[in-house]
């Protein structure tokens, strides 16, 4: 295969568009895709402060790298989730990435600041903390951004993530979530910062190729809690389909965003309106106590009972 840009030997094949790029031309292609999405979806402008949600994995580091290369003012934020060695290693990768490039990385330590860690939040049915972990991340990324005056939170969600989420929401007919899925969540309250996903049309493989070619030192191992996650099963199925039909994932997601989403009741309705402030933390919520504060109570209880067990 030949590089689409320079006709030299190619390294990365993009099957869905029947093209390929060499390692020298690939990063520019990747960043052009990111820029094109930022502009087309009006995600943010160059004079705005962007907070990148960083996990130490390939997607968030590739996003942070691409945004700074494109000349955006992007700082990082890492949440210490307290998932054993995995958390320690991913924190080290995130810190190294920031310090090598002179970038600012904000951090929140869940255990220290809140008195619980993600493993305290196991769901009784699935035995996994992932749903709660998602809430933790959304809450703290938003809160830090709002408190420090960032205008937008950018996450590294890629095409595979978004297609798998869409697939799950269709499988279970989560109509509420379907209506809200998209690359941009507008702010509907002064304390709810705009959320964007600049990589949403780039596949996981394309993001990994960018990270490898740019020699980004990311954490390769998975969070131990991810094993058996439904999202992995969906990704596997979609990649089996992709094998036979290159472009299937892209068509599924982009087709939905262009045509399906508007047909869903409540579609195009971004973050919930009709909000008041949580009586404990002041974050916007529809109820008295926000979902995060309720969950944090559970987490602290669990953490305390674990500590009591070890003290005995």
């Amino acid at each position, binding site marked *: *295969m030949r590089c689409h840009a320079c006709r030299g030997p*190619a*390294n*990365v*094949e993009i*099957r869905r568009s029947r093209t*390929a790029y060499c*390692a020298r031309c690939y990063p520019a292609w990747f960043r052009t895709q990111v820029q094109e999405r930022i502009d087309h979806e009006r995600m943010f402008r160059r004079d705005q402060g962007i907070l990148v949600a960083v*996990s130490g*994995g*390939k*997607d968030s580091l590739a996003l942070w790298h691409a945004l700074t290369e494109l000349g955006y003012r992007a700082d990082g934020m890492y949440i210490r989730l307290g998932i054993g060695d995995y958390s320690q290693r991913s924190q080290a990768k995130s810190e190294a990435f920031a310090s090598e490039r002179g970038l600012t990385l904000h951090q929140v330590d869940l255990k220290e600041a809140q008195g619980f860690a993600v493993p305290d939040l196991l769901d009784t049915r699935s035995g996994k903390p*992932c*749903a709660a*972990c*998602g809430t933790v*991340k959304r809450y703290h990324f938003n809160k830090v951004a709002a408190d420090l005056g960032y205008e937008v939170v950018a*996450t*590294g*969600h890629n095409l*595979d*993530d978004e297609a798998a989420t869409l697939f799950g929401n269709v499988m279970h007919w989560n109509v509420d979530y379907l209506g809200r899925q998209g690359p941009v969540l507008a702010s509907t309250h002064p304390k709810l910062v705009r959320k964007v996903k600049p990589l949403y049309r780039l*596949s*996981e*493989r394309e*993001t*990994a*190729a960018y990270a*490898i*070619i740019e020699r980004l030192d990311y954490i*390769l*191992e*998975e*969070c131990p*809690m*991810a*094993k058996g*996650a439904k*999202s*992995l099963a969906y*990704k*596997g199925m979609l*990649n*089996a389909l*992709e*094998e036979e039909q290159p472009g299937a*994932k892209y068509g599924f997601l982009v087709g939905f965003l262009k045509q399906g989403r508007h047909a869903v009741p409540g579609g195009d309705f971004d973050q919930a309106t009709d909000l008041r402030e949580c009586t404990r933390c002041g974050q916007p919520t529809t109820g008295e106590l926000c979902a995060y504060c309720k969950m944090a109570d559970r987490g602290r209880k669990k953490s305390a009972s674990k500590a009591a067990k070890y003290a005995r």
Partner: protein
Amino acid sequence: MRVTILPDREVREVDARSVGELLKTLGLHRDAHLVVRGQDILTSDVSLSEADQIEVWPVISGGRR
């Protein structure tokens, strides 16, 4: 040839003439992996030889993000 599969660095001996064939033999999806020789990512049509040292990098991560 010797193939190292990340992240656990499991080593396998595989007979394959090209990158595409290698992934097929290992039963791995093309869109879920990158095949690397030395510093280079390889496209699926690249021919492989017995002496090649190959790494297979999985690219899929799980959980809710």
